[in-house]
């Protein structure tokens, strides 16, 4: 059965029916990330497809609201028309996951998905200022609002952002937005080994000229030579100045080239969407979140025991790692390495069998797991929403 409510009242009514019949559902936005998480089977799907459209846009207040099923592309176009953008550069994982469909506002919020600009401008959860959602009893709830500063009551938006549909059905999200930068410029350093590259990125992020993105592509990942990249954004004349200062400060790392306009944008789009690692398809893809300066160290430890290809974003704090699926895709090694260095790892792409065998989401500490399970019960007492997606049994 497929449910496609066209309004909030209808969504509430349908969820009340599901609750009465104790019928769990798979929640779906654009359907582009259905292969993330533990494979689950439900008799019904609840889609935000018909809950679409921008409901509020006040450019002078830097705030926009859209219903959960709104295609991101539509939102982005509306913002671009007024010279603005979502600060967190939402990624598009269709190439990576080999999926079709349209990424939606609700899907991005559910995954707290954030692109390269996250290192400088915050994640999706930081831009999200309000949410409307339906809980597992079929009640419409609101948290936050449409103003940028709001500490009234518990910040449930944070909890829902990144909950992957396991707490509630999102119906509308409100974001703060930023002016779209007038220009961008990328400094490109070639030939650095990974540890030097991450050192460069971290040093650059600590200067008074902080880049809006900092990434490293090792040799063979999207190009033949290793490339270390810093993106500057802003008014054209300001970024020219900052680029000069940065190049001076980073002199010890060698000379750098400058990429502007479309060339720079295309490169960052590819990094955002993890395109260089998309092929070959059969490889598993891990997403490691680490203290940025530990990025290269984590990879070196893993590589010592297992073949892999990587891409570094967020100044080293986000490592995309592709490896063969054999032996549980290195789950134990990847997770223990990440954890030992203060991070965690999520399996973003893997075969159905693999995702059944190992938990795709990083298992939390025991006490935290207990809190999470109880939180889930609080929002969704009957366990209707995406049961078992995050971990078996909850």
């Amino acid at each position, binding site marked *: 059965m497929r449910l496609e409510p066209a309004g909030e009242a209808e969504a509430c009514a349908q969820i009340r029916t599901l609750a009465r019949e104790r019928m769990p559902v798979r929640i779906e936005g654009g359907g582009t990330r259905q292969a993330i998480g533990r494979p689950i089977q439900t008799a019904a799907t609840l889609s935000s497809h018909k809950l679409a459209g921008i409901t509020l846009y006040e450019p002078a207040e830097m705030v926009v609201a859209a219903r959960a099923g709104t295609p991101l592309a539509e939102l982005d176009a509306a913002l671009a028309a007024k010279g603005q953008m979502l600060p967190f550069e939402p990624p598009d994982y269709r190439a990576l996951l080999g999926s079709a469909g349209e990424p939606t506002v609700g899907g991005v919020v559910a995954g707290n998905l954030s692109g390269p600009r996250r290192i400088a401008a915050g994640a999706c959860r930081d831009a999200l200022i309000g949410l409307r959602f339906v809980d597992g009893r079929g009640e419409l709830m609101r948290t936050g*609002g*449409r103003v940028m500063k709001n500490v009234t009551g*518990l*910040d449930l938006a944070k909890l829902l*952002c990144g909950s992957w549909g396991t707490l509630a059905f999102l119906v509308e999200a409100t974001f703060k937005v930023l*002016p779209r930068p007038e220009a961008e410029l990328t400094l490109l350093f070639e030939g650095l080994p990974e540890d030097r590259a991450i050192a460069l990125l971290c040093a650059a*992020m600590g200067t008074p000229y902080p880049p809006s993105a900092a990434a490293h592509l090792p040799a063979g990942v999207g190009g033949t030579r290793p490339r270390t990249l810093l993106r500057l954004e802003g008014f054209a004349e300001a970024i020219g100045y900052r680029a000069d200062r940065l190049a001076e400060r980073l002199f010890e790392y060698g000379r750098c080239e400058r990429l502007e306009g479309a060339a720079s944008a295309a490169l960052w789009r590819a990094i955002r969407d993890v395109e260089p690692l998309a092929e070959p398809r059969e490889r598993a893809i891990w997403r490691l979140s680490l203290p940025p300066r530990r990025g290269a160290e984590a990879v070196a430890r893993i590589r010592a025991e297992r073949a892999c290809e990587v891409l570094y974003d967020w100044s080293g704090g986000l490592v995309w790692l592709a490896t063969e699926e054999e032996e549980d895709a290195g789950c134990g090694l990847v997770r223990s390495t990440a954890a030992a260095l203060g991070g*965690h790892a999520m399996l973003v792409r893997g075969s159905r069998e693999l995702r059944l065998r190992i938990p795709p989401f990083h298992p939390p500490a025991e006490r935290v797991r207990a809190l999470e399970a109880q939180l889930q019960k609080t929002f969704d007492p009957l366990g209707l929403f995406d049961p078992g997606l995050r971990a078996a049994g909850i």
Partner: protein
Amino acid sequence: MTGIAFPAPDPRILARKAEIVAALRRLVSDPEDVIDDPVELAPYETDAFTAYRRLPLAVVLPRSTAEASRVLAYLAREGVKVVPRGAGTSLAGGAIPLEDSVVIGVARMNRVLAIDPLNRTARVEAGITNLAITNAVAEHGFFYAPDPSSQLACTLAGNIAMNSGGAHCLKYGVTTNNLLGVTLVLVDGSVVELGGEALDAPGYDLVGLVCGSEGQLGIVTEAVVRILPQPEGARPVLLAFPSSEAAGACVAEIIAAGILPVAIEFMDNPAIRICEAFAKAGYPVEAAAMLIVEVEGSDREIDAELARITQIARRHGVTTIKESRSATETAQIWKGRKSAFGATGRIADYICMDGTIPTGRLPEVLRRMEEIVRGYGLRVANVFHAGDGNLHPLILYDVNDPEQAARAEAAGADILKLCVEVGGCLTGEHGVGIEKRDLMRHQFTDAELALQASVRRVFDPTEILNPGKVFPLDLRAAA
């Protein structure tokens, strides 16, 4: 003021004071860290919401997470209410004790544990003051961005509990946007590490949930914060306008032009006069409204941005433009604004409201606020963060006149209802505490409040942490 009710103290707990104090003394390393003498307890009887006060049973000042855990576990087991406390600068009464409660203060846990410039993070104990973080990282060329005006005194623990903001949050965000991890002591004494030095944490965003939870989920003893590189420079410009409308329209156009200043502060005429009399900052006392707009970057960047800003201001009839030309002038311009609360306190008692509104409604809300307060026979002065619509109307009254005090409280409530009515909220950065507790139903439905209350009970099933705050006392628990 007496309008806000407190839960009645439990006589059985009051009767056990000596026994509880003795037990607490056994749990801490230095018995002096438990205060029970009424005279020594007096500084803890209220916070910056001074109209209300209650002497707690005792105060404990643990020196480590382990001590805090032992103390909290004991109190929870014995069913004794606990009020977490930082520096007691809450303007919402968030740290006001109950007579049958024990205050757990983190002020003695104030060390910097690690500074990691490459990672742009600092790990600190939560009792450290806000400004001490910036001071500690300054030698590495960094600062901690959220800067409440109380930053000299207030603790990071309080900032986390209230999700505090500051003058510069237009660009850098508030506490929640600069917080990566917390060490949280739960009521059963277990200690959980949420988040850390990485940019996100696995599972639900519990760091985000704890931030702004007003001391009701656990005791925060340590935190990892994001630190940022100091800009090359920063400079404010002071702009005076013949009307609040003109100043409001100027703010809207600055933002629409794609300029993102680090701060846009607004003061109306009464506030300008009060601050000028106090700080001699050279403010234009005839102006109806004034903006302080600060931008940062290199000298050239600053010149270019200020040129754009003043050009916009000219289109809105700006009457005075005063660009800072030196560090002294910058300090001078900010001095008036930063001392606004103190200066106001010298001429009258005041209550400081903290609602947020959509900035597009600014002129209308300013006019209606003035009408509301005048209707109660009182005066109001306005200083606030204009870029994000977070208002701080100061309602002036005489604290020794109970009838005037009641009118001030009523005017404040009307103003906050107005904020909600126009699409805003009750509190932008000070928190709900006891002050706005009974207004929560103007912003949330009972079902929404019940959901929040059940989230709270996941962490604290018997509601012993900071009871009587945030949620209306008669809120019925959700099934």
